[in-house]
Protein backbone atom coordinates (compact mmCIF):
# COMPACT_ATOMS: atom_id res chain seq x y z
CA UNK A 1 0.00 0.00 0.00
CA UNK A 2 1.32 3.47 -0.73
CA UNK A 3 2.32 5.52 2.30
CA UNK A 4 -0.33 8.12 1.47
CA UNK A 5 -3.10 5.89 2.77
CA UNK A 6 -1.41 5.60 6.13
CA UNK A 7 -0.85 9.33 6.29
CA UNK A 8 -4.50 10.05 5.47
CA UNK A 9 -5.76 7.49 7.96
CA UNK A 10 -3.67 8.78 10.82
CA UNK A 11 -4.35 12.42 10.00
CA UNK A 12 -8.06 11.55 10.01
CA UNK A 13 -7.77 9.83 13.39
CA UNK A 14 -5.75 12.75 14.68
CA UNK A 15 -8.36 15.23 13.46
CA UNK A 16 -11.14 13.21 15.11
CA UNK A 17 -9.15 13.42 18.31
CA UNK A 18 -8.68 17.17 18.02
CA UNK A 19 -12.35 17.77 17.26
CA UNK A 20 -13.28 15.63 20.24
CA UNK A 21 -11.00 17.57 22.55
CA UNK A 22 -12.44 20.85 21.36
CA UNK A 23 -16.13 19.96 21.44
CA UNK A 24 -16.67 17.47 24.26
CA UNK A 25 -17.45 18.56 27.80
CA UNK A 26 -16.71 15.40 29.75
CA UNK A 27 -13.14 15.29 31.06
CA UNK A 28 -12.85 11.53 30.53
CA UNK A 29 -13.99 11.72 26.93
CA UNK A 30 -11.59 14.58 26.24
CA UNK A 31 -8.96 12.39 27.69
CA UNK A 32 -9.89 9.50 25.42
CA UNK A 33 -9.69 11.84 22.43
CA UNK A 34 -6.17 12.81 23.44
CA UNK A 35 -5.25 9.14 23.59
CA UNK A 36 -6.71 8.78 20.10
CA UNK A 37 -4.41 11.54 18.91
CA UNK A 38 -1.39 9.81 20.41
CA UNK A 39 -2.34 6.51 18.82
CA UNK A 40 -2.75 8.15 15.43
CA UNK A 41 0.82 9.32 15.81
CA UNK A 42 1.92 5.81 16.73
CA UNK A 43 0.34 4.41 13.59
CA UNK A 44 2.00 7.04 11.45
CA UNK A 45 5.39 6.46 13.03
CA UNK A 46 5.23 2.72 12.41
CA UNK A 47 4.17 3.27 8.81
CA UNK A 48 7.02 5.71 8.22
CA UNK A 49 9.44 3.38 9.93
CA UNK A 50 8.51 0.58 7.54
CA UNK A 51 8.73 2.92 4.57
CA UNK A 52 12.21 4.13 5.46
CA UNK A 53 13.32 0.58 6.11
CA UNK A 54 12.17 -0.66 2.73
CA UNK A 55 13.90 2.27 1.09
CA UNK A 56 17.16 1.58 2.91
CA UNK A 57 17.03 -2.17 2.32
CA UNK A 58 16.78 -1.64 -1.42
CA UNK A 59 20.24 -0.07 -1.28
CA UNK A 60 21.88 -2.08 1.49
CA UNK A 61 20.29 -5.37 2.54
CA UNK A 62 21.80 -5.27 6.05
CA UNK A 63 20.51 -1.81 6.86
CA UNK A 64 18.80 -1.25 10.19
CA UNK A 65 17.23 2.07 9.22
CA UNK A 66 13.72 2.52 10.50
CA UNK A 67 14.11 0.82 13.87
CA UNK A 68 14.22 4.15 15.68
CA UNK A 69 10.69 4.94 14.57
CA UNK A 70 9.36 1.82 16.22
CA UNK A 71 11.32 2.47 19.39
CA UNK A 72 9.82 5.93 19.51
CA UNK A 73 6.38 4.28 19.53
CA UNK A 74 7.35 2.31 22.64
CA UNK A 75 8.33 5.50 24.39
CA UNK A 76 5.10 7.21 23.39
CA UNK A 77 3.09 4.29 24.76
CA UNK A 78 4.90 4.34 28.08
CA UNK A 79 4.69 8.10 28.44
CA UNK A 80 1.01 7.94 27.52
CA UNK A 81 0.50 5.38 30.29
CA UNK A 82 2.22 7.67 32.77
CA UNK A 83 0.01 10.49 31.59
CA UNK A 84 -3.10 8.34 31.95
CA UNK A 85 -2.09 7.55 35.51
CA UNK A 86 -1.61 11.15 36.50
CA UNK A 87 -4.62 12.34 34.52
CA UNK A 88 -7.02 9.81 35.98
CA UNK A 89 -5.69 10.59 39.43
CA UNK A 90 -6.42 14.27 38.85
CA UNK A 91 -9.90 13.47 37.56
CA UNK A 92 -10.60 11.24 40.57
CA UNK A 93 -9.39 14.02 42.87
CA UNK A 94 -11.68 16.51 41.15
CA UNK A 95 -14.59 14.09 41.29
CA UNK A 96 -14.14 13.67 45.02
CA UNK A 97 -14.48 17.42 45.47
CA UNK A 98 -17.22 18.39 43.04
CA UNK A 99 -18.88 15.05 42.14
CA UNK A 100 -18.72 15.80 38.44
CA UNK A 101 -16.24 15.51 35.60
CA UNK A 102 -17.75 18.28 33.48
CA UNK A 103 -15.14 20.72 32.23
CA UNK A 104 -17.61 23.62 32.16
CA UNK A 105 -16.71 23.82 35.80
CA UNK A 106 -13.26 25.00 34.74
CA UNK A 107 -14.53 28.48 33.94
CA UNK A 108 -14.55 29.37 37.58
CA UNK A 109 -10.85 30.23 37.64
CA UNK A 110 -11.27 33.11 35.24
CA UNK A 111 -12.15 35.50 38.04
Amino acid at each position, binding site marked *: *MPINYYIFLSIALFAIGIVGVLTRRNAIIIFMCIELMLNAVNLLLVAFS*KMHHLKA*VAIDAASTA*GTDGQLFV*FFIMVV*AAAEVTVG*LAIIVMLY*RNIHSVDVNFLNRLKH
Partner: protein
Amino acid sequence: MIYFLQTNINTTDASSYLPVALQVAFAVGLVIFLTVVTHLLGPKRKTSDKLQNFASGIESHGDARQPMAIKYFLTAILFVLFDVEVIFFYPYAVNFKGLGWDGFWAVLMFVGFFLCGFTYILKKGALKWED
Protein backbone atom coordinates in the same frame (compact mmCIF):
# COMPACT_ATOMS: atom_id res chain seq x y z
CA MET B 1 13.29 -4.79 16.27
CA ILE B 2 14.57 -5.46 12.83
CA TYR B 3 12.52 -8.67 12.53
CA PHE B 4 9.27 -6.75 12.50
CA LEU B 5 10.52 -4.75 9.61
CA GLN B 6 11.85 -7.54 7.46
CA THR B 7 8.56 -9.27 6.86
CA ASN B 8 7.84 -7.94 3.47
CA ILE B 9 4.50 -8.57 1.86
CA ASN B 10 3.92 -7.55 -1.71
CA THR B 11 1.87 -4.60 -0.65
CA THR B 12 0.64 -3.34 -4.00
CA ASP B 13 -1.31 -6.51 -4.70
CA ALA B 14 -4.88 -6.54 -3.40
CA SER B 15 -5.09 -10.32 -3.80
CA SER B 16 -2.63 -10.79 -0.94
CA TYR B 17 -5.53 -9.90 1.35
CA LEU B 18 -7.55 -12.87 0.12
CA PRO B 19 -6.79 -15.04 3.18
CA VAL B 20 -7.94 -12.24 5.46
CA ALA B 21 -11.12 -11.80 3.47
CA LEU B 22 -11.76 -15.55 3.61
CA GLN B 23 -11.27 -15.59 7.35
CA VAL B 24 -13.64 -12.67 7.88
CA ALA B 25 -16.25 -14.27 5.65
CA PHE B 26 -15.90 -17.55 7.53
CA ALA B 27 -16.19 -15.90 10.95
CA VAL B 28 -19.27 -13.89 10.05
CA GLY B 29 -20.82 -16.84 8.20
CA LEU B 30 -20.33 -19.17 11.13
CA VAL B 31 -22.03 -16.79 13.54
CA ILE B 32 -25.03 -16.27 11.26
CA PHE B 33 -25.28 -20.00 10.53
CA LEU B 34 -25.21 -21.03 14.18
CA THR B 35 -27.80 -18.47 15.30
CA VAL B 36 -30.18 -19.44 12.53
CA VAL B 37 -29.73 -23.14 13.16
CA THR B 38 -30.29 -22.88 16.93
CA HIS B 39 -33.47 -20.89 16.31
CA LEU B 40 -34.77 -23.49 13.88
CA LEU B 41 -33.84 -26.64 15.77
CA GLY B 42 -34.20 -25.65 19.41
CA PRO B 43 -37.47 -26.06 21.35
CA LYS B 44 -39.23 -22.84 22.30
CA ARG B 45 -39.99 -22.46 26.00
CA LYS B 46 -40.68 -19.07 27.59
CA THR B 47 -40.53 -19.13 31.37
CA SER B 48 -39.36 -16.39 33.70
CA ASP B 49 -36.21 -18.32 34.57
CA LYS B 50 -35.41 -18.68 30.93
CA LEU B 51 -35.64 -14.95 30.25
CA GLN B 52 -33.18 -13.97 32.94
CA ASN B 53 -29.68 -12.82 32.11
CA PHE B 54 -27.21 -15.65 32.10
CA ALA B 55 -24.31 -14.98 34.46
CA SER B 56 -22.33 -18.21 34.39
CA GLY B 57 -24.89 -19.95 36.56
CA ILE B 58 -24.67 -17.45 39.41
CA GLU B 59 -27.92 -15.78 40.36
CA SER B 60 -27.78 -12.21 39.13
CA HIS B 61 -28.84 -9.36 41.35
CA GLY B 62 -29.09 -5.61 40.99
CA ASP B 63 -27.94 -3.20 38.34
CA ALA B 64 -24.45 -3.13 36.87
CA ARG B 65 -24.24 0.65 37.32
CA GLN B 66 -23.55 0.66 41.02
CA PRO B 67 -21.16 3.15 42.56
CA MET B 68 -17.82 1.45 43.09
CA ALA B 69 -15.28 2.14 45.78
CA ILE B 70 -12.68 4.60 44.59
CA LYS B 71 -10.04 2.10 45.71
CA TYR B 72 -10.75 0.05 42.61
CA PHE B 73 -9.89 2.99 40.40
CA LEU B 74 -6.68 3.76 42.21
CA THR B 75 -5.50 0.17 41.96
CA ALA B 76 -6.54 0.06 38.30
CA ILE B 77 -4.57 3.23 37.62
CA LEU B 78 -1.47 1.68 39.15
CA PHE B 79 -2.06 -1.47 37.16
CA VAL B 80 -2.15 0.50 33.90
CA LEU B 81 1.18 2.09 34.72
CA PHE B 82 3.01 -1.11 35.63
CA ASP B 83 1.37 -3.07 32.87
CA VAL B 84 2.57 -0.81 30.10
CA GLU B 85 6.11 -0.49 31.41
CA VAL B 86 6.57 -4.14 30.49
CA ILE B 87 6.65 -3.01 26.87
CA PHE B 88 10.37 -2.37 27.21
CA PHE B 89 10.95 -6.10 27.58
CA TYR B 90 9.77 -6.73 24.04
CA PRO B 91 12.81 -5.31 22.23
CA TYR B 92 14.99 -7.17 24.70
CA ALA B 93 13.14 -10.43 24.13
CA VAL B 94 13.36 -10.06 20.36
CA ASN B 95 17.10 -9.57 20.39
CA PHE B 96 17.98 -11.43 23.57
CA LYS B 97 21.18 -13.10 22.36
CA GLY B 98 22.51 -10.18 20.37
CA LEU B 99 22.36 -7.79 23.30
CA GLY B 100 24.43 -10.10 25.49
CA TRP B 101 25.46 -9.23 29.02
CA ASP B 102 25.27 -5.47 28.42
CA GLY B 103 21.63 -5.81 27.57
CA PHE B 104 21.12 -8.00 30.60
CA TRP B 105 22.59 -5.42 32.98
CA ALA B 106 20.53 -2.69 31.37
CA VAL B 107 17.33 -4.69 31.79
CA LEU B 108 18.33 -5.56 35.34
CA MET B 109 18.75 -1.86 36.08
CA PHE B 110 15.34 -1.17 34.58
CA VAL B 111 13.77 -3.86 36.75
CA GLY B 112 15.61 -2.41 39.74
CA PHE B 113 14.05 1.02 39.18
CA PHE B 114 10.75 -0.71 38.64
CA LEU B 115 11.06 -2.42 42.01
CA CYS B 116 11.93 0.90 43.63
CA GLY B 117 8.65 2.28 42.36
CA PHE B 118 6.78 -0.77 43.52
CA THR B 119 8.27 -0.64 47.02
CA TYR B 120 7.36 3.03 47.16
CA ILE B 121 3.75 2.24 46.31
CA LEU B 122 3.63 -0.57 48.87
CA LYS B 123 5.15 1.55 51.61
CA LYS B 124 2.82 4.44 50.85
CA GLY B 125 -0.09 2.07 51.39
CA ALA B 126 -1.60 2.56 47.95
CA LEU B 127 -2.45 -1.13 47.72
CA LYS B 128 -4.06 -1.43 51.17
CA TRP B 129 -7.71 -2.39 50.90
CA GLU B 130 -8.87 -1.65 54.43
CA ASP B 131 -8.50 1.91 55.60
